[in-house]
């Protein structure tokens, strides 16, 4: 039986898996299709991560450093899985760089991609420059260090967060009916970050439900309201228009708690993007024959196992956002659990 493990994806889940495998002394191959490790938080220049309000380099930096320096882990950048043959315990994998390897187990950590808001035409993304995504807001802070309206470079007076863009929406087909899980909490954090720097900016969150579940409730729902005066208004944004008269946007919604339809002016509108399985996730699912949710196409765990990282194929473990929306620290944990399971599966003699 081959003793090495293949980890597919160099984001939080893949890093979690590769680091624990390296620590346990298991020979590991980590393939990442981009030119550096870190996944979406690093590649997309996230600013601050929920829930612990740390920077991506604080959370993922130590993982990347250790994975890159551990002699048990071979990191292969700009590399993808292209084919897989063989039996559980000795999978023969072919990589896009032409290499073939025999591995005892595989950890799939191929992640997600953000919803493309152009698919919701009524929200005006791509049409009005002051309609931006929450990802672009992250980059405004992380790359430019300031908040501004893309149309004129000025500080906005009124900012709106539009929740559930590309989530919980049957109009986009059955593929986007799930909840993104992170949006409510991240919006609370981003709203506080705006208020901390610019206390005079009015910030509004338009929600259908606020799902800051578990211990996230207090720091990401109550605190924005109580400590920073962020306003939460219940109602999904129906459409966003632009008024040439004052150069501002209009958001149209029904306040479903006081039952009043309204069209209010905004200077900057932030769309809170949903999560979809990445192209890589769909591709790897085909190559490895992994079970997918019929609606969302996210990977689903084995029906026989109570563990959510055990796939339908023996010796293949699934971790992180390839299984559905998830936060970064849970992705790391799932990756670590999947790595440990893979080490057990290949019968590694653990060196601690």
């Amino acid at each position, binding site marked *: 039986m081959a003793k090495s493990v293949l980890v597919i994806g160099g984001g939080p889940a893949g890093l979690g898996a590769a680091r624990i495998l390296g620590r346990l002394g298991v020979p590991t191959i980590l393939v990442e299709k981009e030119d550096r490790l870190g996944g979406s938080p690093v590649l997309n220049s996230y600013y601050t991560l929920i829930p612990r309000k740390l920077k991506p380099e604080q959370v993922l930096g130590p993982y990347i450093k250790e994975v890159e320096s551990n002699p048990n882990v071979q990191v292969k950048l700009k590399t993808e899985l292209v084919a897989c043959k063989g039996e559980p315990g000795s999978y023969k994998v072919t990589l896009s760089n032409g290499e073939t390897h025999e591995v005892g187990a595989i950890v799939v950590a191929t992640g997600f991609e953000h919803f493309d808001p152009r698919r919701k035409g009524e929200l005006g993304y791509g049409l009005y420059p002051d309609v931006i995504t929450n990802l672009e807001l992250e980059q405004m802070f992380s790359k430019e260090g300031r908040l501004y309206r893309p149309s004129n470079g000025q500080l906005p007076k009124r900012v709106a967060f539009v929740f559930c863009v590309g989530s919980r929406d049957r109009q986009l087909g059955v593929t986007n009916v799930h909840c993104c899980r992170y949006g409510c909490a991240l919006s609370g954090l981003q709203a506080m970050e705006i208020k901390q720097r610019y206390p005079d900016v009015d910030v509004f969150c338009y929600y259908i439900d606020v799902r800051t579940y578990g211990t996230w409730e207090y720091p990401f729902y109550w605190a924005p309201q109580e400590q920073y005066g962020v306003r939460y208004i219940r*109602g999904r944004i129906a459409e966003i228009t632009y008024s040439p008269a004052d150069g501002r946007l209009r958001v149209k919604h029904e306040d479903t708690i006081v039952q009043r339809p309204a069209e209010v002016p905004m200077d900057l509108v932030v769309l809170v993007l949903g999560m979809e399985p990445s192209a890589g996730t769909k591709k790897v699912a085909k190559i490895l024959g992994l079970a997918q949710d019929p609606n969302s196409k996210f990977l689903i765990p084995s029906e026989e196992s109570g563990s959510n990282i055990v796939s339908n194929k023996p010796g293949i473990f699934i971790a992180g956002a390839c299984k559905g929306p998830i936060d970064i620290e849970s992705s790391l944990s799932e990756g670590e659990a999947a790595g440990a399971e893979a080490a057990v599966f290949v019968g590694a003699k653990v060196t601690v």
Partner: protein
Amino acid sequence: MDEHNYGYNLSISEKTKMVPWEEKVRVVEEVKSDFRFKEYLFGCLNCGVCTASCPSNKFFDFSPREIVQRFLENDVEVLYDMMHEYIWACSQCFTCWIRCPFGNNPGGLVAIMREVAVRNAFEATKELLKPYGRVLLKVMTTGNQLSADMLQPDLFPDWGPKMADIMEDLKAKRLAIPFDIGKSVKTAWEVSLETIIELYTIWRETGIFEMLEKLDPNLYNVIMDIVEENEERYQKLYEGEE
């Protein structure tokens, strides 16, 4: 009809209150048993996208979300009351349907409710249809009630001030269009006899004539005179060919 502020201040009209409960249940069940109903109503999170998108909501006391909610609650009293006036404010644009994240069709629910109201000859539908006697007469006897030239801006102030300029010298403008549309301007009224007879067959098979008889017996008589005349004409033509 009385005011209908359904939200918090539930006010059901006196007329609805007088109707026996069983009758109200029967009418609402007739709506719910329509074959389209289960494709028009799923769940609802009260997100308000339908009502925020609704053009009628801007001008009238009308909310598609309220209709969806009343059906989910099976609020027979309010649903029955809505069928008399409330639902007639809907402009049937179906923006609610296009936008609802659940795929509900509030406009479609309104369409079913209207059909049931007409089938049951509700007093309100008689009132509402009164101004449309001429339209009904034309549509039911010829299938067409407008010719292009009848659309004149002074009859439609809601077209706005620029329309008068656009409508000027239509003949020349139509000639400039690189395909022949002159024909349809002239023949809008001249529907072929075969088409008309087909139309009457549809009215008859789908019970439209019966519906009209209940709603407006006078108009029904006028229309049936024309229908019979045309049918006779067709019969003779057909016999002649044989």
